[in-house]
């Protein structure tokens, strides 16, 4: 469903980018039915999410309304507004008391829905206004080449991490034999990650060594995903750098697991892909291919998480932006319920993507550990599922699929 709606969002933004405010795309009828069905099912939970959807709408409205107040060319095409909301930057928007230049250029102090906090000013980085490159500041190193000024997504990561630590500490305050309350809830999730994800994929013996990493990954990604759904905040996982970092951690842990169980020599010999010593002339082909294969899995993890998060936000922004593109408030009657439906889907996708990331990490870790006779099947299964048209590993594809990978759908 998400790719369908993302295709809709793409077509809308393409139409807008070509002629700002010009073309009038009409929302296709087939989208309304599943999204409407979603919206109607969640009858009980309508109030809070409706608030949030309107919060999004108001943020977009604030964005448009304060177009003049941004002090500098604000491109009015829908595509660029959408990119502005989804992409990283140095401005954090928040409701509060500040001085904003009104539409007629007069600065007004007071409560505004869209105050901006400039992170450059906060951290003292001077930036070249023409190119945007950092010139100097306490967090700019190597004469402008290494710019460590925190951006909006970095701040979101900090907030998510702080929230996660808060929840964790609050949960374990009262350790009891029979858990109740928040402790119970957190323990349910941790037990789920351990039993369903870690033990099923890594095996009973070694699971506990890797459970801390898996639980951390699961909760951190979950919190980052969910936090992006709060009005005025941004999804840190909608940033390629963040997902690359998470995939890199998984990669490091996977290699650590493999080297730990097989030794460095065993690990290197597995890089030859099972081609025996007698056919050593095949090695110059096999080894680069296997090394490349090592990197496709984290790459897939990266792009999957990134694209899923960006897709949801893009669609919501496109649907709400349709109100402004078509210029009439009547469009809101159709657009906001659809956006609400997508919002529900995004909530679901947040959980699912955190689960998928963690499960695939566990799968890769488990496949790196030596289970005699099953590991080649695991590795190639991992190759297959990416849809990556990599070099076929010969005849070993189908044979081990029915092996011990029980946690894999």
């Amino acid at each position: 469903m998400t790719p369908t709606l993302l295709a809709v969002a793409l077509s809308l933004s393409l139409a807008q980018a070509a002629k700002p405010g010009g073309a009038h795309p009409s929302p296709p009828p087939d989208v309304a039915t599943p999204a409407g069905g979603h919206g109607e099912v969640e009858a009980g939970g309508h109030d809070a999410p409706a608030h949030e959807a309107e919060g999004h709408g108001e943020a977009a409205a604030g964005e448009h309304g304060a177009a003049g107040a941004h002090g500098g060319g604000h491109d009015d095409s829908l595509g660029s507004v959408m990119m502005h909301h989804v992409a990283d930057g140095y401005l954090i928007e928040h409701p509060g008391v500040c001085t904003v230049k009104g539409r007629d250029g007069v600065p007004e102090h007071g409560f505004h829905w869209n105050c901006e906090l400039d992170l450059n000013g906060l951290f003292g980085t001077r930036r070249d206004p023409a190119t945007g490159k950092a010139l100097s500041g306490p967090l700019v190193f190597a004469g402008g080449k290494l710019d460590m000024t925190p951006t909006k997504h970095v701040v979101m990561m900090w907030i998510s991490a702080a929230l996660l630590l808060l929840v964790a500490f609050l949960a374990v305050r009262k350790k009891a034999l029979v858990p109740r309350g928040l402790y119970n809830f957190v323990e349910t999730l941790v037990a789920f990650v351990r039993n369903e994800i870690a033990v099923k994929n890594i095996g009973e013996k070694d699971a506990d060594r890797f459970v801390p990493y898996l639980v951390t990954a699961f909760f951190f990604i979950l919190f980052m995903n969910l936090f992006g759904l709060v009005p005025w905040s941004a999804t840190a996982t909608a940033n390629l750098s963040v997902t690359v970092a998470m995939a890199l951690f998984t990669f490091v842990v996977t290699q650590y697991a493999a080297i730990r169980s097989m030794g460095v020599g065993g690990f290197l010999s597995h890089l030859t892909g099972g081609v025996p010593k007698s056919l050593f002339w095949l090695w110059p082909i096999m080894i680069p291919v296997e090394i490349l294969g090592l990197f496709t899995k984290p790459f897939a993890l990266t792009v999957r998480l990134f694209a899923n998060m960006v897709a949801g936000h893009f669609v919501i922004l496109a649907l709400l932006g349709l109100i402004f593109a078509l210029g009439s408030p009547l469009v809101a009657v159709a657009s906001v319920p659809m956006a609400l439906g997508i919002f529900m889907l995004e909530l679901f996708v947040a959980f699912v993507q955190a689960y998928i990331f963690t499960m695939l990490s566990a799968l890769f870790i488990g496949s790196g550990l030596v289970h005699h006779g099953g590991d080649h099947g695991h590795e190639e299964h991992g190759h297959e599922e990416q849809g990556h048209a990599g070099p076929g590993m010969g005849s070993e594809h189908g044979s081990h699929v029915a092996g011990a990978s029980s946690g894999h759908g």
Partner: protein
Amino acid sequence: MEGMTSVALAYLSAGFGAGLAVIGAGVGIGRLAGAAMEGSARQPTAIGDIRTSMIIAAALIEGATLFAIVVCLLLAIK
């Protein structure tokens, strides 16, 4: 054919690519859901497991589709 600048071609291909990607996702997930329904009908006791596996497989299929969408977005935005 003078109108066919590279920018125009990029937009065109982005549109086509998005449509094709959705076809792939639709077919894949549709078949998956059909098989899941059939399995659930044959053995109602396994509905829970089937549902879990279905969600996982659907997420993986969408992951592959979203690779294509990312490429289309790159074409359209740049």
